[in-house]
């Protein structure tokens, strides 16, 4: 993970390291920190592709107000990865287009 090792002013304390997957690839991140921070530390910058023109999109505002960082997390699309805390075992996927919201009764599966 690409972390800032030392800093002249700040001391960083992270929660526990947990495993998660991004598009099926195993990665590590810190529990409780935004999913986007973990992705960034693992060198992942492209989070989704826009619905009309298929343009790559990623992190932008970091406070949950812009929608650039939407991804599919555990089968649910449009998750604001910049403010959603990482949990052990999360399955994070690149979102293509608008994503599909699983209905009640349907299983939240992949490739819906």
């Amino acid at each position, binding site marked *: *993970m*690409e*972390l*800032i090792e030392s*800093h*002249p*002013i*700040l001391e*960083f304390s*992270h929660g526990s390291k947990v495993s998660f997957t991004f598009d099926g690839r195993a990665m590590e991140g*810190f529990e*409780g*920190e*935004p999913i986007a*921070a973990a992705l*960034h*530390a693992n060198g992942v*910058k*492209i*989070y989704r592709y*826009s619905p009309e023109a298929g*343009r*790559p*999109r*990623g*992190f*932008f*505002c*970091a*406070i*949950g*107000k*812009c929608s*650039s960082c939407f991804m599919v997390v555990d089968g649910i699309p449009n*998750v*604001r990865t*910049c*403010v*959603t*805390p990482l949990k052990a075992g999360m399955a994070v996927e690149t979102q293509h287009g608008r994503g599909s919201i699983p209905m009640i009764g349907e299983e939240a599966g992949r490739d819906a």
Partner: protein
Amino acid sequence: MREVELLVIGGGPAGLSAAAEAAGMGASVLLVDSGPRLGGQLIKQTHKFFGSRDEFAGTRGFKIADVLLDELKGLSDRVEAMIDTTVVGYYREDGTVSLSRSEDEYFLVKPKRIVVAAGAQERLIPFPGNDLPGVYGAGAVQTLMNVYGVVPGKKVLMIGAGNIGIIVAYQLIQAGIEVAGVVEAMPRVGGYWVHAAKIRRLGVPIHLMHSIKRACGDKVVEGADVMELDERFNPTGREFHVECDTICLAVGLTPTVELLWQAGCKMKYVPQLCGYVPVRDCNLRTTNHSVWVAGDSSGIEEASSAMVEGRLAGYGAALSLGYGERPDRYLSFIKRLENLRAGEVCDKIRSGIACVLCEGGEQ
């Protein structure tokens, strides 16, 4: 549905100050913040703050957050704080507020009074490639770097030489990240001269009268084309290319005011305050008499004034609920705001506020 005396929306410097002041007067407060931690933008600020002793001048921003949080801890019997909780709607018919917690839980609250201290959001300027991964808001880069200790990029081009742009450029250098330069369309930096001097002496060029022409790269940022502008902001034709993997936009903030619209507050577009803001009296009460506003939601300014505005709004809301007057404190808040805003750097703010000040509230 839960009834609440005072709902404070936003846990940044304004919201924390409002909650502390109101609870200090005896009101019971529910403080909500949509992020994972209280403190708002303060928790990312490694630089020392300006202002006077009352605004913690000379103290680093993230320590100021600690001071405010400590004050709230001392009032914990009257203040409940919820994080990961976003206020999503205000229903004018009966003043009900709907909230979403961690995107799992949806619930309603009926507050007697509200302080909206929801802060601001970053603006975007249009240029080809501005949606490429690697183009980030300056505040976002600051969050990655200073809160989560993640390297945001290897070489950063900063667009905008307001206080945010030059402070974040300095913080990038502190974190060991190369800053290729700062690009600013105006013929002067918008931020404090001393902030600019700090980065100039560390070798960071500030290209005045320049703007970004395009972000280059196929799927992520790989560089930028920067163009020179004349006095009328038209391109002169002179350009240069900058290799970088991150383009940081520090081109201004705009107040977060959706809830105020929903609450039926009278709103006005005020360029000096950077967008639509609510009309308010001198105590920061809006035209919806159960709603106060404080901090960047009332107009883009500084953390120092956000803290005093928070105190004023929390005071006003608690007073209206019947909690005791504290005239000395009230007058000190008014005086501090006047002092902070007296200088030439605040001419714009004062003229903006004059456009949205309404009557009522004089004490």
